[in-house]
């Protein structure tokens, strides 16, 4: 898992998979000013998030710039097993994409 894109943890509990992720992204609203230059920092935010279990989408999210910076996300997959992979992938309004992946132990 690449620290540069954030952190993800997926844990098996009673057969369900608790997934917690923190995605590294500034989620700029476009209304914040650079403290030194006084210039507006352009809007830049994650729009779409796809959560996958063993490569299959199980939860999809549409986000706006009202989601906090370095967004936290937690959800639960109903049935999991050791060896399963959980992936959180996203795309922002600039077309930048990245993903976080965890394997259940």
């Amino acid at each position, binding site marked *: 898992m690449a620290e540069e894109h954030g952190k993800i943890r997926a844990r098996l509990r009673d057969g369900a998979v608790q997934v917690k992720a923190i995605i590294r992204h500034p989620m700029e609203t476009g209304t914040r000013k650079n403290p030194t230059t006084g210039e507006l920092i352009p809007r830049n935010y994650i729009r779409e998030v796809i959560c996958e279990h063993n490569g*299959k989408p199980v*939860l*999809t999210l*549409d986000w706006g710039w009202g989601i906090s910076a370095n967004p*936290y996300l937690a959800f*639960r997959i109903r049935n999991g097993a050791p060896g399963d992979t959980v992936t959180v992938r996203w795309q922002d309004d600039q077309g930048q994409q990245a993903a976080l992946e965890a394997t259940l132990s």
Partner: protein
Amino acid sequence: MNRRDLLLQTLTAAPLTALCAAGLLPRRLLADWPQAAFNAEHLDEVERLLFGGQVAEDSDRVKINAPEIAENGRVVPVEVSIDLPEPQTLVLLSDANPYPLLARARFTPEVEPELSVRVKLGESANLIALVQADGALYRASRAVKVTSGGCGG
């Protein structure tokens, strides 16, 4: 290197157009982000754009957990849990944000109908959850007092 490793590496480096051309992008990532709803400035307009004229009924089977008082409006933790059979869509809004729509989640039967996120609240607001389940629309809300606002500098 297997295809997945290549895909993950490529996703983080390549521009969108190259990925499209290579056929590596999941189609979902190019789809239906609700632009008009995210840009709407009034709550009723957001609801109309997302749900037409459908009337929502208040339900205590949709629970919003959020702090009563948020000291940092830039990071307000919100948990929504839904005790309805097979909800499809959850929409989270703030009635006092300049753009009320915060997020939309679409569930498959593979996940529990619950979600935790963190949102920005510019000022004290009501968080509103709208849930579409089996063709019906349900609503819950929760007041959050904000002592230090979250949208601007």
